[in-house]
């Protein structure tokens, strides 16, 4: 199946760029430049650039740079070699100091360990440090959700609803403030919900990056937290068939997962690829009890077909994601008194024997994406790129209901979105890179009325039209400056029934009488039409201070229109016994953020620290505001409102490799969040977190063992949202404090990984891995788990993982 490398790779043009004059002293000539991939301008690492007949040589670094110094000859023959390509020879006249770039058509024939990012992201994001998951890490987390995998990166935490539902928090922000981009298109699911996990499977992708700054502007200007960018594997221009299969078996939840990927490529550029994931778990276990009704089922498949040529290509891609997730039965409660009882109990109030059956309360989701991409390159290396995507997101939530209605969804939403992204990127003198583009979105949300429950989110259509421009100036490898701008117009056209009394008491009748359509009994049909205009901007610089010492500084301005939930939500949350109301008065939210980064890399040592600071005006936030008397007794009412918020924090990383065998790594993150108007801390801010690991690799690299320890502190900075509820005890009314605010104690968690390599193809390995998670079976609760009042986190888990690559 393998073809000779010479056939796979060929070198294309090489041409010169600017000349500088230096004093014409002998043996002072130098030659520097870059070896880059013609396809997408990604740098090629490890290419050998040498001068024929001499000992002068240089190997390209991770950015593709090489440097030859002290050359004495005016006329030399340069040879460029890469392990997977035939060598290229070129005669070069050295009259002055010269810069020479080689563009190499680099068709990888092995899946890379470190996935090179999409060129635009790579270059345009120079001023903000990115975090990314390697392919090996993606395999390691293959049986978990995308959020869980991401949370291994410093600066990313998890917002959980029980043990199966989780979403990423970046620098203290989540939901609509964090975007997910898959295959170059924003994921359009019901991302506004705190208990809505992203409808996407990590295993379909090979590159995972968390980006902040200019590179995000292409996909939106509204994500103050950052963007998670998922990229598929690179295509090979050769006749090949390759793939990978992963099998996971786990003791906790008595389940596992299976993934398989297959790709067929041809030398003509045609390719076809398919991916399949199946996951199934029964009830998970906390250290001391069964977590009843926490099982999950997931089935994902994707299919792509396309053609890639050097200058143009297209792809048609379809993916379907379907899952069903149980929600801890004990967390479905009726009122505050039930919550009080749960808070005073060490164990969940309903513990049933283990089962694979998932009953109400539960969530079901189906997400489908049909996508077409097209790109073409013009002569001057400028590139047009078009992406169209049609996404359908169906979401159903089931509650425990009377008269057999538990089998009918209590929430049934169908969100359809059409996205179009067009961009044009070009370069100028190799120093300037530009990208301009437009971005359109049409979104239609339908809330099924047959649920028999008042709509949480109304029917609406949303229109968005945006344009962006980003530029990167990189005169040398030691300095870069990037900046970008984005403008967006957003229009909401919703149709919602309001309770007539609510409409009046909130003063909407006075301020929004223009939205009123029709009275139907005690319900009022309204048509809120809201327009928002948003601006986003970014600028940043990156420069090297000394050998391997880099500094980055960036400023990001982002504006976000309130989402459908913040504007319109209207309903009861069973697990928290709260009533949530949206707010029509909300204005757009503006965030200013400054990010700094210092990093040093030398030999096997690398360290970085990234402090950041953000200030948000009109930060949309939900907090308790009063009590409402209901048929279930007094309920705290949570309203969306706007405030001014300050957040500051840092992420740090330290890694030290000793003799290629022992790796020590330590990362920490801390964040402080304060509501300035109310002068109180923000809720759900991740506590201090420290993650350390030691890894030993055998001499012949046949096996390795890794011990990882995580310490999560107790969040001391939290708002006091406790309230009192009158219970009846021994014939008298006793006011009781409902303590929902205090965060749980900090905890320590130990994980052990043991891997045996079966075979190795390049940097890509097949292996068997044994994992023990929460080795000490520690009983702990997590502040960022919204169901922490009801149960502890997962107990010990043994996992067997088999990864085969072929």
């Amino acid at each position, binding site marked *: 199946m393998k073809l000779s490398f010479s056939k796979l790779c060929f070198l294309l043009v090489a041409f010169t760029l600017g000349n500088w004059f230096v004093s014409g002293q002998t043996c002072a000539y130098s030659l520097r430049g870059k070896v880059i991939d013609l396809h997408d301008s990604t740098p090629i690492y490890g290419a050998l650039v040498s001068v024929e007949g001499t000992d002068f040589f240089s190997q390209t670094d991770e950015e593709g740079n090489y440097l030859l110094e002290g050359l004495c000859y005016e006329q030399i023959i340069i040879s460029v070699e890469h392990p997977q390509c035939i060598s290229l020879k070129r005669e070069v006249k050295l009259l002055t100091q010269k810069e020479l770039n080689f563009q190499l058509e680099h068709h990888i024939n092995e899946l890379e360990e470190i996935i090179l990012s999409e060129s635009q992201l790579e270059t345009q994001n120079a001023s903000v440090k990115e975090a990314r998951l390697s392919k090996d890490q993606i395999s390691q987390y293959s049986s978990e959700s995308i959020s869980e995998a991401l949370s291994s990166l410093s600066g990313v935490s998890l917002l959980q609803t029980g043990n199966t539902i989780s979403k990423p928090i970046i620098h203290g922000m989540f939901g609509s403030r964090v975007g997910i981009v898959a295959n170059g298109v924003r994921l359009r699911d019901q991302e506004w919900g705190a208990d809505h996990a992203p409808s996407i499977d990590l295993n379909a992708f090979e590159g995972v990056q968390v980006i902040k700054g200019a590179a995000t502007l292409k996909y939106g200007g509204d994500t103050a937290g950052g963007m998670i960018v998922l990229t598929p594997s690179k295509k090979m221009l050769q006749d090949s068939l390759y793939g990978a299969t992963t099998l996971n078996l786990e003791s906790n939840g008595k389940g596992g997962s299976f993934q398989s990927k297959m790709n067929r490529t041809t030398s003509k550029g045609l390719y076809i690829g398919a991916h399949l994931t199946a996951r199934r778990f029964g009830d998970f276990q906390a250290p001391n009890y069964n977590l009843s009704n926490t099982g999950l089922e997931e089935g994902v498949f994707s299919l792509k077909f396309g053609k890639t040529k050097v200058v143009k290509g297209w792809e048609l891609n379809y993916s379907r994601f379907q899952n069903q997730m149980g929600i801890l039965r004990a967390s479905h409660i009726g009122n505050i008194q*039930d919550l009080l009882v749960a808070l005073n109990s060490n164990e969940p109030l309903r513990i049933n024997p283990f089962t694979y059956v998932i009953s109400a309360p539960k969530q079901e989701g189906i997400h489908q994406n049909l996508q077409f991409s097209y790109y073409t390159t013009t002569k001057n290396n400028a590139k047009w790129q078009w992406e169209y995507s049609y996404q359908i997101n169906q979401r159903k939530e089931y509650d425990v209901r009377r008269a057999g209605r538990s089998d009918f969804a209590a929430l049934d939403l169908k969100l359809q979105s059409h996205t179009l992204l067009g961009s044009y990127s070009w370069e100028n003198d190799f120093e300037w890179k530009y990208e301009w583009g437009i971005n*359109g979105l*049409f979104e239609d949300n339908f809330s099924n009325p047959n649920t028999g429950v008042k709509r949480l989110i109304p029917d609406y259509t949303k229109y968005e039209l945006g344009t962006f421009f980003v530029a990167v100036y990189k005169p040398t490898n030691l300095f870069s400056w990037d900046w970008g701008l984005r403008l967006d117009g957003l229009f909401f056209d919703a149709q919602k029934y309001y309770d007539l009394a609510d409409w009046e008491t909130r003063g909407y009748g006075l301020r929004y009488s223009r939205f009123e359509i029709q009275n139907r009994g005690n319900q009022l049909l309204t048509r809120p039409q809201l327009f928002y205009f948003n601006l986003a901007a970014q600028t940043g610089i990156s420069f090297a201070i000394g050998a391997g010492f880099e500094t980055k500084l960036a400023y990001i301005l982002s504006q976000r229109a309130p989402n459908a939930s913040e504007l319109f939500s209207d309903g009861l949350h069973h697990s928290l016994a709260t009533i949530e109301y949206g707010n029509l008065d909300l204005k757009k939210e503006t965030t200013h953020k400054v990010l700094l980064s210092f990093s040093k890399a030398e030999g096997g040592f690398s360290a970085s620290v990234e402090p950041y600071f953000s200030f948000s005006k009109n930060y949309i936030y939900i907090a308790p505001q009063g009590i409402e008397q209901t*048929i279930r007794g007094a309920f705290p009412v949570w309203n969306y409102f706007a405030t001014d918020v300050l957040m500051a924090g840092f992420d740090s990383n330290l890694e030290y490799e000793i003799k290629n065998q022992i790796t020590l790594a330590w990362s920490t993150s801390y964040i402080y969040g304060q509501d300035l108007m109310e002068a109180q801390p923000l809720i759900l801010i991740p506590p201090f977190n420290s993650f350390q690991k030691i890894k030993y690799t055998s001499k012949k690299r046949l096996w390795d063992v890794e011990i990882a320890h995580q310490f999560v502190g107790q969040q001391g900075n939290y708002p006091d949202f406790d309230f009192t509820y009158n219970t009846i005890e021994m014939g008298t009314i006793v006011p009781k404090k409902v303590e929902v605010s205090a965060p749980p104690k900090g905890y320590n968690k130990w994980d052990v990984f043991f891997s045996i390599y079966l075979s190795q193809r390049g940097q890509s390995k097949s292996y068997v891995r044994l994992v023990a998670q929460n080795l000490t079976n520690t009983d702990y609760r997590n502040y960022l788990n919204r169901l922490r009042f009801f149960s502890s986190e997962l107990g010990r888990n043994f996992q067997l993982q088999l990864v085969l690559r072929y």
Partner: protein
Amino acid sequence: MKTINYTIQTFLLCSSMLFFSCEKEAPELVEEQELITTVTLEFLTEGEPSQTLRWQMDNVNPETATLKVNTPYTVRVAFLDESDPGDIEDITQEVQEEADVHQVFFEFSDLNIDFSSGASDVRDSQNNPLYLQSIWNATATGTGTVRVYLIHEPTSKTSTSRSGFGGDTDVAVDFPIRIIE
């Protein structure tokens, strides 16, 4: 080449504009099935007119029941959905039909009232009373409140306190009661 590009691109832009012309139908009004808007307590005793107290979602302060001390009263609880005045639904029916997963219970504050299952009360498959119909007897005079509970999927059906029953509270409403000589 360039012209073709622009043609394709213009086409894409125009087709995206087509989506902008959709008009959405007015949404249907949701017929709420889970809703209980009203709880009524009916007090009956020989030689007195009956008294009915109503707790309603738009009137959360019901009137006071005045009961005589040491007099047995038959108390009926009813749960109604009156959100549509033209179509009042009796949720009590659903509770009766699902007797095994429901429980009615009373808690009193500042009142000395004993209660027991009434003769025409509904019982579940284990013969536990639901207290939809109960007999109340006050042993002292005074003024206080009764909290009426409807519990869904209780973890126990034989408790003597609200917390002992466990389960999810579907209804918890207070009625003022006065006990006189």
